[in-house]
């Protein structure tokens, strides 16, 4: 019952992985939207703080109403265009599928991404080594089992689902930054070896046009490299 003529404005920045979630959803849904780029290197303007007092991206204006925080925004888009990214909540098996997606996304961030983030504070190679090992252990324990039926996307889907909307921007960074050696290559090698379902899924996600469309690989590689090196000084 979703709207086919909603008026959508996305306030965004292509470098932000959280805003990237909304882009994946909108690309996949193929709905028209207007984009307003919010520069993140300078203080937010008064105009933008009136839209989102927290000053963060993404924000979305959906038929005149503002929604913020990438999680609620992603679920909003998925539900406004039913049964494309996620089944309706009252569809047969819908509640269970939505639950699995919610649990998967929650697990990705609380168990894995939180470990990976420690790379940005690491001062020595030994520290990085142990962070990588801990992160891979979490992938094996927490995420690999949830991807055993991925085909190639979550839950056996042949197209992008809300699970990929919520995690895809982080997955593409994982794949491209390990390939470029910005994250240790041991990370990707170890995951590929010990969590083959996860890695196969990750590579499919990282190659999908809805995920790659706004991803400026070069720029993200160089800015991430700079952030990591800064911490080691």
């Amino acid at each position, binding site marked *: 019952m979703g709207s086919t003529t909603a008026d959508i404005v996305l306030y965004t920045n292509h470098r932000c992985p959280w805003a990237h979630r909304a882009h994946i959803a909108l690309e996949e849904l193929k709905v028209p939207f207007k984009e307003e780029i919010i520069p993140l290197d300078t203080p937010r303007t008064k105009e933008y703080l009136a839209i989102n007092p927290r000053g963060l991206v993404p924000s979305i204006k959906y038929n005149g109403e503002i929604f913020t925080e990438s999680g609620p925004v992603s679920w909003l888009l998925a539900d406004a265009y039913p049964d494309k990214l996620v089944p309706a909540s*009252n569809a047969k098996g819908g509640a269970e599928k939505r639950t699995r997606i919610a649990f998967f996304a929650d697990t990705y961030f609380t168990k894995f991404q939180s470990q990976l983030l420690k790379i940005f504070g690491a001062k020595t190679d030994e520290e990085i080594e142990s962070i990588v090992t801990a992160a891979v252990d979490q992938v094996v324990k927490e995420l690999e089992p949830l991807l055993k039926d991925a085909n190639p996307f979550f839950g056996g889907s042949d197209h992008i689902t809300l699970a990929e909307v919520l995690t895809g921007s982080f997955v593409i960074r994982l794949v491209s930054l390990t390939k470029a050696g910005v994250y240790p290559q041991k990370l990707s090698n170890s995951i590929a070896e010990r969590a083959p379902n996860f890695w196969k899924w990750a590579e499919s996600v990282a190659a999908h046009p809805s995920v790659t469309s706004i991803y400026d690989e070069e720029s993200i590689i160089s800015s991430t490299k700079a952030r990591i090196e800064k911490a080691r000084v």
Partner: protein
Amino acid sequence: MPPSITLYTNHGCPYAHRAHIALKESGLEFEEVIIDLDKPREPWYLEVNPRGLVPALKYSDDTLKDEIITESAVVAQFIADVKPTTLLPASNSSPTAALERARINYFVDTWNTKIGSFMFAMFRAGSDEEKEIKSKEWVAAVQKEIEPLLKNASPFFNGSKELTLAEVNIAPFLLRIYALSNGDILPQSVKAGLEKLPKFSKWANATMSSESVLTIWDEETVVSRTSARIQKMKAQANRTTNGHK
């Protein structure tokens, strides 16, 4: 055939409490298995939930067999979706259903991220002075982040006359904040400050009087057990700083 539901729970846990509220609202019948949180989880429970936490929900119906759902917000959401009630509109039930769900989602997310950490920070606060500072910060955060989102509460979130998924998620924490603001565990200024917020206090009191919210609530036990836990925490901290382990 009605679904078969087992809830693995502990009545003292605010997160498990969310599942109880949701289940009461749903009218679904369920079997309850109490998990003792005062000792290490038994191996059989780690088979149910490897994380060892409560709540966990085991659910079977004509398509699902012994599906295990964990993480309290996910459990509450599942219950609200698998048996639609006034807690939450089905996602495609109207042109505005997706928007209503997003507003609830954002409100709960705001509580979790902006208000959620104060309780534990307060338990760790040392002096009475520190506690009063934290108390002011806590009330100020609720005034800034939560009060504005309740402007059309009547009495429940977003104009609803009935409990919504927003109250399911937050009620266990409201009960505890109010009950523990006894001057001993938390300063009385926490409750006093919150009661001065017009929208918040009206909404909180309506929520805390709701039948579904109160089903497993045992204020006396929660207060005394929390007090005991904090004493234990402080004693351990003292032993560690004194060089004992």
